[in-house]
């Protein structure tokens, strides 16, 4: 296990690269969902404004 973590001496390159890519994937998932949710909320606000009067 420690051999796996040390990556044959390349741990300082391999793990940051993996972590960074993983972070960007997660961020993209969050950002995509957020962008959709924002568009939906905005559309909903518009609809309720039209129905109000």
């Amino acid at each position, binding site marked *: 296990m420690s051999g*796996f973590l040390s*990556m*044959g*001496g*390349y741990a*300082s*390159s*391999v793990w*940051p*690269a*993996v972590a*960074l*890519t993983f972070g*960007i*994937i997660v*961020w*993209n*998932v969050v*950002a*995509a*969902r957020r*962008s*959709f*949710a*924002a*568009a*939906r909320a*905005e*559309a*909903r606000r*518009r*609809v309720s404004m*039209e129905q109000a009067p």
Partner: protein
Amino acid sequence: MDWTWFHRFGSPPHLYGLAGKLTPWFAWPAALLILAGLYGGLALAPPDYQQGDGFRIIYVHAPSAWLSLMAYTWMAAAAAIGLVWRMKVAHAVAASCAPIGAWFTVAALCTGMLWGKPMWGTYWVWDPRLTAELVLLFLYLGYIGLRSAIEDPQRADRASAVLAIVGVVNVPIVRYSVEWWNSIHQAPSVMKFGKPSISWPMLTPLLIMFVGFTLLFVALMLVRARGEILRRERQSRWVSEVVAQ
């Protein structure tokens, strides 16, 4: 020829619903494949005979670079369809490709730099692939910049579509000219190692990652495209029906 399928396919409510239904079918396989590919690449694949375990960065670097180029191609293709057939949903797809592609260009650049540190002894050398990737990032930023600078959404769609098409003609030219540039300015061999010689046990996780990243891109694009469709269709009745639910 009967074109009704095309118009039905291009109708915003239809695509909005379809994208919603399809998203999990891309997202979950993408998650599974990426996790499997990472495990295979980091734990199962044998170390490279020259670079040892350092080569394992390829399992995150190459798929990111692939996604960054694929997103640009999709963006330009969707932009062309949107421009020719005046199709709103195509512009929605093009608009959603840009941020995803830009982010994975950043991922490819940073992982390439982290790979460069043990290989070249420094984070940045003007390696042709990295340089081309950097230019690609600027192309993405120009696209996003143009889009956000134009207030009228329809004009923004169409103007950025022209830019995407001009850019996609340019991408291969940039690629080859950068390689040519690199070949005439032969840097005094900075590369400590040769290219990794890829064997099947190494290649399999990489292919899994490529498929996983492709599915991931489609899933991300579908989620964003739904939002973009809503933004473009705010006045339509179907939107109020969908949103009211």
